[in-house]
C-alpha cells in the first residue's frame, strides 16, 4: 500500500517530472486547440524524440499532452467555431452560439471545470477497474487476443467511417503494413521483395506520422485561406450555480466517456458525440434549445471526452490493446522502452501503472490551473495562419521520422503514407483503423498462429475452441454481432421492428 502511494506520488514529488507534466499539459492545450495540429500527431512526433529518455520522463510529458490536448480542442470550438480536434465537434455546436451571446468566458470556464471532473472520473475508473480486468486478462489465451484485436479494429471502422467496408479495408491495409519485414517466428521475409531495407519492417511511428501528420497537413491545404472570426472573451470564472446544476449531467456523461474510451479502438471523439446525443435526449426542457447554445450540450461532450482519456488507458495497460489512437501511440512508446503492455504489466511493473495514474491526476490538476488562466495570450497564438503551420508540420514530421532510426528511407515511406492517407481521407476512409492494424497486426498474427498450433493445425479444433471456452465464446459472440449488425439483413430486421412495435 505504501509502495503504491510512493509510485502514485512519484511525479508529484520529483520537480523535473512535475515540470514535464505541467509543460506537457500546457503544450497539449495549444496543440489540441490549434486547428490542424492533433494530439495523435503531436504524440507520434514526440515519441520519436523521447525514446532515449527515461521511461518516466517520456510518460509524464505524453500524459500531459494527452490530457491537455483532449481539452484544448474545446477552446477553438467555442471561440472560433472551429473544433481544434475531432472530439470537440459537438462542443462547437453549442459553444459557439454561447460565445456569440458574449458569454465565451463563462462557457470556457464551465467546460474547463467539467473536463476536469470528467478527467477525474476516468482516472478513478482506471485505478479501480484496471487491476480487476488485469486479473481476468491473465486467463486470456491467444485466440482471445486475436479476437480482441479484430474487435478493436472493426469497432473503429464501424463507428467512425463512412461505411463498414471502408473500415475493413483500412484495417486490413494496416495489418498488411505491420506484416512487412522478417517474420518474428520463422525469420522468413514477408513483402520484402528481396530488399534489405524492407526486412527491418516499417516502424509504426513512421506510419503514424505519415497518416496522421502529413496526410492531415495536406488536407488542411484545402482550407488554407479561411479566416477565423474572433469572439470577445469576458471573465473566466466558473459560475458556481452552473457547476452545481450540471454536475450530475457531467458525472453521467463521464460514465459514458469512460466506457467508450475503454472499448478497444474508440476514443474521445466518439465518446463526445454519444454524450452529446445522450444530453440532447435526456434534457427535457433546456433553458436554450439545443443548437442555439445549450449549456447541457457543452457539458456532456467535454466531460465525456476527458473521461475517455482514463478509460482508454484501461485496455492498453491491462490487455495491451489500445483504447484509442493516442493510446495506440503510447503503446508504441512503451514497447520502445522495453515494457510489455498486457496482463503481466500490473504484476511485473506495478510502479508503472500507479505512476501513470498519479501522473494523469497531476495533469488534470494542471489542466484546471491552465484552463482558467492565460486565455488572452491563447487567442493570439491560435490565430497562427495555416499557411505557416502546414510547412512547419511537414518539417517536424520529417525530423520525427528520421529520429527513430536515423534512416532517410523512412522519410520517403512517411511521404508515401501521407499522400495515400490524403486520398483515403478525401474518399471517406478513416486512417484510424490503419494505425490500429499496424500496431495490432503483428500481435494478432502471432496469436493466430499460436492458437492454430495449439489446435494442431486442425481447423475443426481451432474453430471449436472459439465457442467451447467461456471467455472466447463471449468475445466470439461480440465479434459476430458486430459483423452481423453491418449486414443489410440486420438493418432490414431492425427497421421492421421499429415500424411494427407490437412484434417486439
Amino acid at each position, binding site marked *: 500500500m505504501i509502495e503504491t502511494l510512493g509510485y502514485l506520488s512519484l511525479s508529484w514529488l520529483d520537480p523535473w517530472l512535475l515540470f514535464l507534466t505541467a509543460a506537457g499539459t500546457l503544450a497539449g492545450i495549444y496543440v489540441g486547440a490549434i486547428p490542424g495540429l492533433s494530439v495523435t500527431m503531436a504524440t507520434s512526433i514526440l515519441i520519436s524524440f523521447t525514446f532515449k529518455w527515461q521511461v518516466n520522463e517520456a510518460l509524464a510529458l505524453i500524459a500531459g499532452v494527452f490530457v491537455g490536448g483532449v481539452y484544448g480542442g474545446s477552446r477553438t470550438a467555442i471561440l472560433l467555431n472551429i473544433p481544434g480536434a475531432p472530439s470537440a465537434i459537438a462542443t462547437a455546436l453549442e459553444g459557439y452560439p454561447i460565445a456569440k451571446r458574449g458569454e465565451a468566458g463563462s462557457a470556457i470556464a464551465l467546460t474547463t471545470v467539467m473536463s476536469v471532473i470528467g478527467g477525474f472520473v476516468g482516472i478513478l475508473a482506471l485505478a479501480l477497474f484496471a487491476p480487476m480486468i488485469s486479473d481476468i486478462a491473465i486467463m486470456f489465451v491467444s485466440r482471445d487476443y486475436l479476437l480482441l484485436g479484430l474487435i478493436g479494429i472493426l469497432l473503429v471502422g464501424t463507428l467512425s467511417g463512412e461505411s463498414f467496408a471502408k473500415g475493413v479495408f483500412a*484495417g486490413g491495409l494496416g495489418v*498488411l503494413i505491420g506484416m512487412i519485414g522478417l517474420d518474428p517466428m520463422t525469420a522468413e521475409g514477408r513483402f520484402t521483395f528481396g530488399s534489405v531495407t524492407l526486412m527491418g519492417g516499417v516502424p509504426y511511428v513512421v506510419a503514424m506520422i505519415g497518416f496522421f501528420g502529413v496526410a492531415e497537413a495536406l488536407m488542411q491545404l484545402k482550407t488554407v485561406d479561411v479566416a477565423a472570426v474572433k469572439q470577445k472573451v469576458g471573465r473566466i470564472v466558473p459560475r458556481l450555480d452552473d457547476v452545481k446544476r450540471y454536475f450530475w449531467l457531467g458525472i453521467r456523461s463521464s460514465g459514458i466517456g469512460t466506457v467508450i474510451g475503454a472499448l478497444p479502438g474508440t476514443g474521445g471523439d466518439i465518446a463526445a458525440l454519444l454524450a452529446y446525443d445522450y444530453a440532447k435526449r435526456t434534457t427535457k426542457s433546456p433553458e436554450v434549445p439545443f443548437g442555439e447554445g445549450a449549456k447541457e450540450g457543452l457539458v456532456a461532450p467535454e466531460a465525456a471526452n476527458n473521461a475517455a482519456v482514463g478509460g482508454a488507458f484501461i485496455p492498453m495497460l491491462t490487455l495491451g490493446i489500445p483504447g484509442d489512437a493516442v493510446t495506440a501511440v503510447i503503446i508504441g512508446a512503451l514497447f520502445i522502452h522495453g515494457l510489455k503492455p498486457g496482463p503481466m504489466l500490473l504484476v511485473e511493473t506495478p510502479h508503472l501503472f500507479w505512476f501513470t495514474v498519479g501522473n494523469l491526476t497531476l495533469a488534470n490538476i494542471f489542466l484546471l490551473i491552465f484552463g482558467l488562466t492565460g486565455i488572452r495570450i491563447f487567442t493570439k497564438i491560435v490565430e497562427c495562419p495555416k499557411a505557416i503551420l502546414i510547412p512547419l508540420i511537414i518539417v517536424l514530421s520529417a525530423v520525427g521520422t528520421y529520429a527513430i532510426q536515423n534512416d532517410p528511407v523512412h522519410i520517403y515511406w512517411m511521404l508515401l503514407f501521407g499522400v495515400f492517407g490524403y486520398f483515403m481521407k478525401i474518399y471517406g476512409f478513416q486512417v484510424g483503423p490503419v494505425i490500429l492494424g499496424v500496431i495490432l497486426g503483428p500481435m494478432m498474427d502471432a496469436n493466430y498462429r499460436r492458437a492454430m*498450433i495449439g489446435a494442431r493445425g486442425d481447423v475443426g479444433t481451432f474453430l471449436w475452441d472459439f465457442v467451447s471456452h467461456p471467455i472466447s465464446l463471449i468475445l466470439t459472440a461480440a465479434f459476430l454481432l458486430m459483423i452481423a449488425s453491418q449486414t443489410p439483413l440486420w438493418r432490414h430486421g431492425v427497421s421492421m421492428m421499429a415500424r411494427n412495435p407490437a412484434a417486439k
Partner: protein
Amino acid sequence: MSGPKTLRPGERVFACLIVLFSAVALWQAFLISGFTGLSQPGVFPMLAAAAMLGSALFILRDTLRARVDHENRRTFAAGMAEVVPVKLLVMLVLVAAYLAAMPLIGFVLASGVFLFVSFAFLWRRHVLVCLALSLVSLAIVYFLFRVIFQVVLPQGQLIPPGVF
C-alpha cells in the same frame, strides 16, 4: 452504404485502384508460403489481403451503384481541381524536392529553403517577412530538437561535416 449517393470526382478510379492493389497484395501474400500449412507465416497476410480485396470489391460495387450528378456534371479538369487542387500539387512537388534534397544538402539548409519557399507560396507576404519567419522558425526547430531533445538531424553529403 446508405443508399445511392453522389460520387466524388475520381472515386470510381480510386475504388478500381484499391481493388487492384488488394489483388496484388493477396498474390504477394500467397507467394510467402502458399497453402502449405495453416500456421505458416503467409496465412495471416493472406487473410488480411483477402479482407481488403473483399471490402474493396464492395466499395467498387457501391461506387458503381452511386448516382452520377449529370446536372452539375463538371469537366474532368474541374473535378481534378477539387480532389487535387493546384496548391496541393505545388506543395507535393515542394515536399518531394525537400525530402530528396535533405540527404544531399542536410536538414538545416533543406528545411530553411523549404520553409521559405512554402511560406512565400502559401502565405503571400513580403519576401523579407517570409525570410525572417523561416529563419526564426528554423532556429526554434533546431534549438528544440538538436539542443534540447538531442536528436540527430540528417547531414548532407555535399556539405562538409561539422558545418551544420
